[in-house]
């Protein structure tokens, strides 16, 4: 078998194990959908000013939860599951076989991307059915898919890099949430950030990748009046690249003692 075929086979087995594991199926898959329902029904009736235009909060949340889905499926999922695999010795075992390390990890990343795409599709369908959200078509759809893939890949790379600072699998959820939850709040994923949000929060948003990703997702999803900015995608990819470099340098295949 060629290495690419081995890698794709890895995706298949990862997928099998993923759906049989109640924790991954729930926290990665059901969780974002649950948040979507809760947020839109609790807070989806008002409006929020963005770029001088009033946006329905329901529309805001459909795109924000699609963003959240991708981050959960790639960043959180990869960081936690790969740490677990490292600490239980699965990575070490794989490392002793002829399978190239990249084929194993890329297999996991591609699986995470597939889960992310599925979640985004479900979120979009939910938005269309309950809130009459317009679904992107044509050139907009192409841009949107590009943003989803760029975001998924970048956050997966950051997830791999994060495993290097997680001391052991028990600490996984604590470390990962300590990193991602504040960023999700400060980037307007759970609570809309309008034009009048505090300056320091907006500064945080411009530095870290979550807000750029969320903005690009919203613009890609709805088109006007949101402006699609290529620099959002660029900053996202730069973070992803940084994650990849850090992972290549600090990733460990063996349990941490």
């Amino acid at each position, binding site marked *: *078998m060629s290495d690419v075929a081995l890698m794709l*086979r890895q995706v298949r087995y990862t997928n099998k194990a993923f759906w049989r*594991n109640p924790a991954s199926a729930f926290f990665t898959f059901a969780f974002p959908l649950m948040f979507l329902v809760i947020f839109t029904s609790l807070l989806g009736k008002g409006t929020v000013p963005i770029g001088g235009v009033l946006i329905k909060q329901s529309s805001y949340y459909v795109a924000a939860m699609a963003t959240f889905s991708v981050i959960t499926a790639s960043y959180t999922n990869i960081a936690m599951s790969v740490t677990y*695999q490292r600490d*239980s*010795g*699965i990575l070490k*075992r794989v*490392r002793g076989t002829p399978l190239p390390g990249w084929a194993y990890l890329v297999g996991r990343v591609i699986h995470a991307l597939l889960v992310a795409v599925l979640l985004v599709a479900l979120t979009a369908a939910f938005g269309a059915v309950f809130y009459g959200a317009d679904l992107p078509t044509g050139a907009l759809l192409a841009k949107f898919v590009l943003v989803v893939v760029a975001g998924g890949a970048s956050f997966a790379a950051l997830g791999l890099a994060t495993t290097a600072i997680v001391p052991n699998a028990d600490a996984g959820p604590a470390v990962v949430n300590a990193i991602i939850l504040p960023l999700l709040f400060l980037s307007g994923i759970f609570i809309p950030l309008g034009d009048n949000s505090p300056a320091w929060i907006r500064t945080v948003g411009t530095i870290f990748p979550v807000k750029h990703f969320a903005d690009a997702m919203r613009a890609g999803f709805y088109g006007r009046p949101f402006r699609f900015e290529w620099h959002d995608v660029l900053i996202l990819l730069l973070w992803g690249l940084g994650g990849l470099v850090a992972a290549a340098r600090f990733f460990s295949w*063996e349990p941490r003692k």
Partner: protein
Amino acid sequence: MSEVVIEVVGLRKSYGDVEAVRGIDLRVRRGEVFALLGPNGAGKTTTVEILEGYRERTAGEVRVLGHDPARRDRALRERVGIVLQSTGIDPYLTVRETVELYARYFPHPRDVDEVIDLVGLTDKRDARVIRLSGGQQRRLDVAIALAGDPELLFLDEPTTGFDPGARRNAWEIVRNLASLGKTVFLTTHYMDEAENLANRVAVIARGEIVAEGPPGLLGGRHLAETLIRFRVRSGASGPPAVPGAVVRSNGLVEVRTETPTSTLHELTGWAMAGGFELDGLEVTRPTLEDVYLELTGGEAGAE
């Protein structure tokens, strides 16, 4: 003499201040079953994992199937099967899925069902790994290592946690592999395992090889004195008239001898003449365990 498969010269490994392996030499030939015996912390896993390419050595020369394992050549990994001392398996795949997954990483895998039969997991083929007992998971470890049809197999305490039946079965597997010309390098704490399986044993203690050889000859075992033990009832006429006899306070008599045949002859003659029985008569040679305890200083783990 057949081809040398593993060659180790002057191997050293330090973890910070801890010198885990202090200059060992090993040579294993094709078709041999080689056992590394030693107490906890002696340096067995360190040595094996250097040979497997997991750990970098501090000093020394190492060749495995002609490769330097530290370079982690894929061509080497394709020819080697590994059972680590402790590793995990994805808990949500079934036994069959797991063996199949690993088998295909190798260029010439064995038949998956055959391997599962071989380790005695046929009944559990479709069970998820999470539902296996500890010993069954260990058997799956062995199955995974066999799946790629390796010519060299590393087994780090492969039968720890096995019930006696499973251990015998594992030995049978190892013997079969050896008869097919495969080479096996194993570590173990079990003397009987080393004795039954290995062509050659090396005893390692505190990072040094303290003895090496076929299990029957280890530590001059074949030359060591035989121990004869029995009890005499009152009625025996004085102490036995053989050199080296020691009477313990509980009436137990011990005789150490280098000439067991004639000593026994004298003792039985003495008992027959006196018309009494040598109760609980035992003739024992030092077991591998005795030799091992002697060699390793009888310590319980070198820390």
